[in-house]
């Protein structure tokens, strides 16, 4: 049996390896599919739905759907762009994302997606939820105001650090990331050197006292939009 399959993304044929997901195949071919919860090296999660494409006409998350021979994928269509933009706008209004003084500005994947998608003002009313800041740990800050529930910290702590510091609690609109071993991060075995601390796409999980050390102009997305590394064929 062949280890290669051919699929089309927006009409262009690409070769993919059997077992790859659509997003992995697209990345390898230099086609950017927007995403937030997906992170290479972690198991597929399919939580944020920002990578939604249609495969043979059916909507699916590109980070969880394996490629199949002859699969016809739609990625960059007006309908999908608007769908993803809607999702990202909902994330902005659901939390308290104050980019103007967030130290992750310029390096934040949510902000960068907002810019790439041309979001000026969300079409939904801001919810301004009351959320906590957990600063109990001497070296790590958790700011739930900015959490988008991507589970990268949960998965990285479990699968990379081997610690299981975080987990989800609550359901629906009340779902949030919590510390498994208590109410505060200081009660866990989290360390500042954990890979989980670096896994957050937004400013919800931060090393303390780093702040704005990277000057404006040298931040990750200051010059090129998010996804450019994939489109330029660079390692991401």
């Amino acid at each position, binding site marked *: 049996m062949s280890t290669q399959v051919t699929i089309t993304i927006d009409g262009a044929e690409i070769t993919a390896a059997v077992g790859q997901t659509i997003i992995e195949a697209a990345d390898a071919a230099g086609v950017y599919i927007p995403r937030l919860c997906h992170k290479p090296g972690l198991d597929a999660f399919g939580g944020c739905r920002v990578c939604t494409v249609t495969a043979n006409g059916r909507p699916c998350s590109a980070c969880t759907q394996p490629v199949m021979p002859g699969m016809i994928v739609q990625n960059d269509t007006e309908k999908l762009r608007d769908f993803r933009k809607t999702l990202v706008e909902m994330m902005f209004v659901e939390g308290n994302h104050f980019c*103007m*003084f967030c*130290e992750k500005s310029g390096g934040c994947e949510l902000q960068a997606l907002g810019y790439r998608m041309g979001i000026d003002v969300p079409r939904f009313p801001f919810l301004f939820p009351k959320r906590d*800041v957990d*600063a*109990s740990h001497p070296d790590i*800050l958790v700011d739930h105001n900015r959490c988008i529930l991507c589970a990268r910290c949960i998965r990285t702590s479990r699968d990379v650090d081997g610690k299981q510091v975080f987990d989800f609690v609550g359901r629906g609109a009340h779902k949030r990331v919590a510390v498994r071993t208590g109410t505060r991060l200081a009660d866990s075995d989290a360390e500042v050197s954990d890979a989980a601390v670096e896994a957050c796409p937004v400013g919800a999980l931060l090393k*303390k*006292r*780093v*702040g*704005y*050390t*990277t*000057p*404006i*102009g*040298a931040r990750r997305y200051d010059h090129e939009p998010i996804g450019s590394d994939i489109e330029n064929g660079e390692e991401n």
Partner: protein
Amino acid sequence: MSVVTTSNGMKRVVIEPVTRVEGHGKVTILLDEQGEVQQARLHIVEFRGFERFIQGRPFWEMPVAVQRLCGICPVSHHLCAAKAVDRIVGGENLTPTAEKMRRLMHYGQMFQSHALHFFHLASPDLLFGFGSDVAQRHVLGVAAAHPELAKQGILMRKYGQEVIRLTAGKKVHGTGAIPGGINKNLSTDERDFLLADLDQMVAWAEGALKIAKDYTVDNLDSVAGFGSFDSNHMSLVRADGAMDLYDGVLRAVDKDGNVIFDGVDQQDYLDYIAEEVKPWSYMKFPFIKSIGPENGWYRVGPLSRINTCDFIDTPLAEAARVDFMSLTDGKPNNITMAYHWARMIEVVHAIEKIKELLHDTDLQGENLVTKGKGRREAVAILEAPRGTLFHHYKVGEDDLVEQANLIVSTTSNNVPMNRAVEGVAREYLSGKEITEGLLNHVEVAIRAYDPCLSCATHAMGRMPLVVELVDAEGTLIDRKGKDTADVG
């Protein structure tokens, strides 16, 4: 302007909004049946609340978060907060590169803010007259009548903004100052870019100084008494008495130049300054403790800085200071309209300092940050374009801000501005038919202080919300407020 007749037969004239100032405020003037001014007040009607909502945020966010108070001189808040958090991380002894980059940012800020005020906001009054045609009395009128001057104003502001961009990362709301230092130095390319227009900026600054001086001297008869009054003055000065806009010790002098206090460490400001809250304004009323709230108010800003310092350590500005002080025989100058002249002396000083710094190779240094034994409480004081600025933070063991107090320069000038408003209203409006041109005289007095009303509104818990019911003839029928006794 609106005129309302109150229930006791008085007339209330309201100027809202006060134009050509930063932020939103209003003036109310109460006239009795004979048209005599009974009371005139400047009200600050914006509310910001920064001191409350930065509680619970990490301390290292302060320089970037608190600068959002203002879009005109955010660098002042950025640097003042940075100076405070320097102490939180024990990094107050900055490297030469860090201190000089911050000073460069600050002088760039001083240059652009003063240029903005002088050319865009104040010059229409000075060039066309206080009561001149309102259709011409604005920056576009200046551009039409004096195109070269308008161009200079715009390009001087732009130059200052470029200095800020290259030190803070952005022209407005940058991130350059971080706890214990800075996040970038100045490359030689960036330095050369700024050097290219430097001489032109020095020349234009001197030109602006001449306009401000000539205006004051040529019109001394009319401006000397305009909204003027004796007052105390306060500012930072360098330990040797030189003007220092970035750091130093607090000094206050009275109307005759007698020292009230001097050499005060920034950390001890609460031993010398207190604040009073009044129900009709969101602004607080600071005063010198040893004198008390009644007479302890003081002025800050360019006029006060020239009055308090012993000398300026750049030659052109020092010559201008000597010239300025000779007008009052070396005693403090208490003429409100002399703020404009003093402000332009500082524009010259700022550009001289920028020149000095651009030729200093420390700006290309690589050692950007220092840290040491930290603290949980810190005060920082800075001379912002509009005057002395205080930031005071208390930080918990978890690195989150527990308490903050900000005294901005416009707050210190609150009583003086009200004095000026009342003085001008009594002199120019009493017994006369009120016209727009006459009312502009009141605004001219406010503008001399270059107030930033948005920055100045921090009083919490005494919301002077008022609802007024007025009938078809404009007669006030009823008024309800949280604290109606003092609303006037």
